């Protein structure tokens, strides 16, 4: 099958292209333009339209026990018109909505290993797009024992590789390293150099051990860090300390917006985004995603059980679920960000400052930490804020001036170009996840392509793609999904010593009474053909 997308403006920064060109697809791959006179089996006219690779979301909570608990907790959010509300979409609706916006790969970033089967089952029911998970380590008894007993880097890296293999994950995330374990011993706050009771490991030691472990295991995606002290005034110091701790190995900091807070001003809550952005600009090995806040009803879904426990008093509506899990656990706390609330407006400004003050769009990835800052369905409005300074100024004018004054946002004139958007939402996430054949439109790339009308209203443009191709197949046309297909879950196969297998069997049997095979993900558990796609390790 030969397909041609003809005459669109191709925005493909990986290959240095921004101009009118044809994109040719043979079956599932993009190919170099064939010899003149070649006839495509299908031709799509993209004149006047923007052609980009399919977008990639590296951090969106779309599956797993916590996300599902949020669905069950909040029937009223989708009771009026089924599936109408963002925070609690069904698996099916999740895939549909992402595809409409031209997203073709989405990573669920927080799955406890014992919940991996459920998460992969849920993702297998998300249509159209490809997906993957990050497995959570860092509050688990096994790792804390390894660190405590100083068993060395190889032991940690074998455990990382084993976990990735058992859960079929794309990488590892650490969430409030040590904080959930300390909470079980009644800690109510936990900072980067605090030590976990009973285990004697500090948060810093856990993060460093995992950072090295992930690197040595050859996992392409660097350790994905959710820092301590999320959401607290003055927590910029935690983020700065974590950035500095990256040293000379890659580290990804998730939803940095939630750590951009100082204590200045009459209310003791201010933006420190400018300092944070400067630190990110200067840290060669650090990437971040933003976790932008947008105003409206949502639900916070987090495996930072300590943070969610402390935050439950702010629940809106007033109900919540807190889970002290085997390791991280988590919490579901519905929340409404208000454009009239001082703190919420500062949070909104911090996110935009990070986007606009971090210079390299390869280092700042586009997320709302769905649904924690906002549902992913708010992305189009966020693109508009980044790409249109007049629109931004109008929005700011309607917000409380005292809150805006706590940030530098009003003074920033930068506008994202289409090429920068393509870098931030395509090239950078593909590179960060080690997906060489995604995020660009060069020959050999997977034919995931999004075509948008070049609308001055950028929100309208990105809300509904004109055409989306997944694996070369047309799946969206004029804002409607025209073809449902099942994507694959991306997973890394990292080599590890066989001794860890036996060790984990013994540990599981002793601790849980059932072996690791009960929670191990395998293709045979997923009722779809070829549910997984292997991502190679770094060489």
């Amino acid at each position, binding site marked *: 099958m030969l397909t041609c997308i003809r005459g669109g403006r191709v925005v493909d920064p990986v290959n240095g292209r921004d101009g009118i060109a044809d994109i040719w697809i043979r079956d599932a791959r993009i190919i170099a333009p064939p010899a003149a006179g070649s006839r495509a089996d299908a031709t799509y006219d993209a004149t006047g339209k923007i052609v980009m690779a399919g977008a990639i979301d590296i951090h969106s909570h779309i599956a797993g026990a916590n996300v599902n608990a949020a669905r069950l907790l909040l029937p009223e959010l989708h009771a009026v018109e089924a599936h109408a509300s963002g925070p609690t979409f069904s698996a099916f609706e999740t895939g549909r909505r992402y595809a409409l916006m031209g997203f073709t790969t989405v990573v669920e970033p927080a799955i406890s290993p014992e919940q991996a089967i459920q998460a992969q089952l849920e993702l297998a029911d998300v249509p159209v797009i490809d997906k993957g998970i990050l497995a959570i380590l860092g509050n688990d008894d096994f790792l804390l024992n390894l660190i405590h007993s100083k068993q060395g880097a190889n032991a940690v890296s074998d455990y990382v590789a084993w976990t990735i293999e058992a859960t079929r994950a794309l990488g590892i995330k650490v969430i409030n390293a040590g904080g959930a374990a300390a909470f079980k011993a*009644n800690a109510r706050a936990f900072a980067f150099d605090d030590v976990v009771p009973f285990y004697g490991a500090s948060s810093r030691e856990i993060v460093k051990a995992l950072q090295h472990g992930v690197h040595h295991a050859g996992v392409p995606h660097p350790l994905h860090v959710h820092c301590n002290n999320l959401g607290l005034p003055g927590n910029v110091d935690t983020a700065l300390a974590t950035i500095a701790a990256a040293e000379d190995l890659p580290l990804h900091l998730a939803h940095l917006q939630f750590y951009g807070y100082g204590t200045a001003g009459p209310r003791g809550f201010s933006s420190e985004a400018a300092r944070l952005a400067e630190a990110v600009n200067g840290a060669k090995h650090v990437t971040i995603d933003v976790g932008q806040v947008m105003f409206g009803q949502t639900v916070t879904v987090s495996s930072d059980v300590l943070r969610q426990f402390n935050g439950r008093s702010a629940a809106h509506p007033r109900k919540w679920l807190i889970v002290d899990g085997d390791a991280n656990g988590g919490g579901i706390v519905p929340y409404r960000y208000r454009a009239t609330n001082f703190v919420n407006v500062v949070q909104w400004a911090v996110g935009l400052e990070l986007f606009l003050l971090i210079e390299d769009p390869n280092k700042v990835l586009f997320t709302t930490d769905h649904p924690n800052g906002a549902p992913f369905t708010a992305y189009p409005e966020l693109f508009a804020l980044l790409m249109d300074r007049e629109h931004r100024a109008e929005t700011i004018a309607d917000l409380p001036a005292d809150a805006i004054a706590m940030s530098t946002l009003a003074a920033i004139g930068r506008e994202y170009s289409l090429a920068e958007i393509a870098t931030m939402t395509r090239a950078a996430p593909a590179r960060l996840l080690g997906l060489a054949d995604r995020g660009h439109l060069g020959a050999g790339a997977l034919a995931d392509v999004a075509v948008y009308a070049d609308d001055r209203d950028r929100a309208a443009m990105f809300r509904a793609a004109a055409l989306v191709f997944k694996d070369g197949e047309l799946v969206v046309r004029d804002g409607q999904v025209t073809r449902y297909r099942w994507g694959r879950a991306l997973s890394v196969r990292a080599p590890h010593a066989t001794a860890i297998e036996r060790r984990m069997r013994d540990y599981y049997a002793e601790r849980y009474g059932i072996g690791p095979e009960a929670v191990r993900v395998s293709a045979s558990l997923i009722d779809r053909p070829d549910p997984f796609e292997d991502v190679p390790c770094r060489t």
Partner: protein
Amino acid sequence: MADAWIEGRPAAMDAAVAEAAKLLAASRLPVVAGLGTDVAGARAAVALAQRIGGVVDHMHAGAVLRELDVVRTAGLIVTTPSEAALRADTLLLVGPGLAAAWPEIAHALLGRAPDRRWVAGRRRVHWVCPGAPASSLGAEVVSIERVGTDPTHLKAVLGALRARIAGRPCGRTALSPQALEDLAAALTAARFGVAVWANAALDALAIEMLGGIINDLNATTRFCGLPLGPSDNAQGVLQVCGWMSGFPMRTSFARGVAEHDPWRFDARRLIDSGESECVLWISAYRAAQPDWERDVPMIALTVPDAGFRRPPRVRITVGRPGVDHDGIECSLARGALCAVAATRKSPALSVAQAIARITSALGSGEAAAQRTASC
């Protein structure tokens, strides 16, 4: 022995499948009920209900929704079975039905030695309102401090306990004031306490009161709940309903979108009221019987030894998950969806396979097939 019957008479599987498809296609509001099945069976059942515009309900939805209603109106702090066993220095058992909900409770929780790093001394176990001898827990292995009271007084006792933990006065209850004081002091002194109850045995008010006690105790110490769900993989089916429809069981697809209502979409009410006139009954773990009074055309996917008051219109024998075939179900030991391997594989159809055959017999022509989820 036959594995398919029509009107109580042995039939060819193809004929039974065709008859089932015919009944479902002809129904205005088919109900997929029972739902005692593994994850694959539940996925197939929900997808079928979406396709034919039916309702999904589980035989234990009442107990599932009782706990869920507390969470979705108030809040709850819970933990996992292994954290309870390893970390808890104090266990508060509440009400009857614990061993029924968790047959391994004696050795998996009560008799298990906690991790010595966290629990230095002896673990204290209190049981409020047993309503049954301690031996029913198989708990002679541990010493249980029983706070005996009549089960009907449980809510008042829990209310008084909550008041005393918060330092508020309370009226007289079935418990002596001293016993109440001692229990409140013991719970407050816990370092990591866990309250254990069976959702099927308590009402929503009792669960909400327990949730309040747990929340209040967390003002100064750590305390969690360990609600024990009902059997027949109800918790696993709950998860499947959640991600497939966005809602728990008792959800209807009759109007083309998912709608959840614990009263409207209660299978028993729908059938006894005459709103629904066709049932697909699924019970693959044991020979569970429907609890409605009215006779309606029924397609039953059940284990072999099921007996019915009246023979179902169509009956197809299915295998047991974890016995006849591999499956995925909510594990009591892990509180998560876990794989279970067949203990003696047999050629019996799984629920998922039986539904797949019925679904394909529905064909693609009828209007009800136009649901988006048919992909």
